[in-house]
C-alpha cells in the first residue's frame, strides 16, 4: 500500500517532480553527449564576444534603461493583485449558488476599482509609455 502521507500529498505532485528530474537529466545528457563527437579547438579570436565583426568596446554589463525597472515594479504590483482574483474566481460559482453572489461581486468590484485607480495613476504619470 502507498503510505497515507504520500496519498495526502496527492501522488500527482510526485509524478511532476519525477518528470522535472527526468527532463533535467535529459537536457544535461543532450548537452554533454556531444563531447564524444564535437571538436574542441578554443582560440583567442573565437572567444571574443560577437558584435557583428566589430571589436567590442566596453563591457556588456553596464547600466541600462530605467524603463525595465518600472515595468518590473508594475508587474509585481498588478500580478499580485491579479493573484487575489484567482481564489475569488474559483469560489464565485459556489457563492452565487448559495445566494451570496451579489455581495461577493460587489466586494470584488471594489477591489478591481482600486486596481484601476492605481492603473490610471500609472498611466497618467507616464509609467506605461516607453518613451517620454
Amino acid at each position: 500500500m502507498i503510505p497515507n502521507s504520500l496519498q495526502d500529498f496527492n501522488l500527482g505532485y510526485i509524478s511532476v517532480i519525477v518528470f522535472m528530474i527526468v527532463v533535467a537529466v535529459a537536457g544535461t545528457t543532450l548537452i554533454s553527449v556531444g563531447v564524444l563527437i564535437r571538436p574542441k579547438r578554443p582560440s583567442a579570436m573565437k572567444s571574443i564576444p560577437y558584435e557583428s565583426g566589430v571589436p567590442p568596446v566596453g563591457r556588456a554589463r553596464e547600466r541600462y534603461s530605467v524603463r525595465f525597472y518600472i515595468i518590473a515594479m508594475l508587474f509585481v504590483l498588478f500580478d499580485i493583485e491579479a493573484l487575489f482574483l484567482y481564489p475569488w474566481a474559483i469560489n464565485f460559482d459556489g457563492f452565487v449558488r448559495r445566494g451570496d453572489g451579489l455581495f461577493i461581486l460587489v466586494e470584488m468590484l471594489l477591489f478591481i476599482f482600486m486596481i484601476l485607480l492605481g492603473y490610471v495613476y500609472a498611466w497618467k504619470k507616464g509609467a506605461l509609455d516607453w518613451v517620454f
Partner: protein
Amino acid sequence: MFSPARFFETGAAPIVAPEQAVNPQTDPLIWFLQTFITLFVIMNVVLVTMAYQTWAERKVIARMQLRHGPNQTGPMGLLQPIADAVKMLGKEFVVPREADKPVFMIAPIMSFIPAVAAFAIIPWGDARSEGLLGGWIRPAIANLNIGILYMLALSSVGVYGIIMAGYSSGNKYSMLGALRSSGQVVSYELTLGISLIGVLIQSGTLNLNDIVRQQQASIWFIFPQFFGFVVFLISGIAETNRNPFDLPEAESELVAGFHLEYSGMSFGLFYLAEYISMNAIAALAAILFFGGWAPPFDIVPFTLIPGPIWLFLKFAFFLFLYYWIRSTLPRFRYDQLMGLAWKVLFPIALANLVITAVVKLIGVHMGWWV
C-alpha cells in the same frame, strides 16, 4: 482491451467530484512503473512533436512564400529534423571570453526544464479514465488540481533561463535581448493570467481535465469567452517570443538576442525550449477554449475518434495559426509592444472578467445557467 472508442474514454461522462479522481492503483511499485512509462511516452511525444513541428513550420512558411522548403533530406524533407539534431550535436561548444562560465552552462537547461515540464499536466484524454493498456500509459502524467496556476508558474520560471543566458554571455546584444525578453514576458504574463480568470469564473476549477469536462457538458469556452480567448492568444504568442513579438531575438537589431553566444547543442536546447513552450501554449489554448480531448459533438461519428487525436487536431490548428501569423505580420516596435500589453490587453482582460462575473450572477438567478 484496446478499442478505438475506449482510447482514453471520449464519450459523454458525468462530472465527478474531485475526491473520486485519485488513481485507483494502490500498489506503489506498479504505480511508480506506470508513472515512469507514461513519463517516457509523453516526453518522447513532446520531443518528436517538436522536431516535426520545425519541419512543418518550414514547409508551411515556404509554401506561403512560393518556395519548396526542405526537400532534399528524405522524402519531402522528412529527415530534416534528424539531420539538424545530428549537426547540432557535432558543433563545437564555444565559451566566450567575458562569459560567467557556470551560469552560461546552466542557462539552457534552466530554460528547457520549465518548457517541457508544462506537458506534465496536459490531459491527452480523460485523466479520470484508466488510460491505455490497462493503466500502463496514463492520459496525463498528473491530474493536478492547481493545473492553470502550475502552467502560469512555469511560464514565469522560463524567463530565468533567458536572463541567465543574456547576463552570463557578456555580450551587449545578449544582454539587451534578455532585458527586452524579460520585460515582454512579465508584461504579457499579466494579461495572460487575467484573461484566464473569465474561464475560471465559468468553470469554477483550476483543474485542466475538469475544465474540458465542463466544456463537454455545456459549450466550448471560446463562445462565451471570446475576448478572453483573443487576449490569451495574443499574450501566448508574445509570451513565447514568437513573431510578430520576437523583439528579444530581432535578427536585424540584435543578431540573435539572448542566445547569440551559444553554439551546438546548448543553442539547440534554447531552440527546443522555445518550440516546446509554443506547443504548450497551443495545447493550453485547445484545452481551455476548444474543448481539449472532447469531441465537438457527442454523437456517433465524432465519439468514435479517440481523445488524443481530437486534442492533436486542435493543437495542430493553433500551430498552423502561429505559422500563418509569422509569415503575415511584420515585427512590432518595442514601445508598441509594451503599449499593446499595458494599454490595450490589460483593460480588455479586466472588462472581460467583470462582465463574465456579472453575466454569471444574473444567469444563475434567472436560471439560464446549468
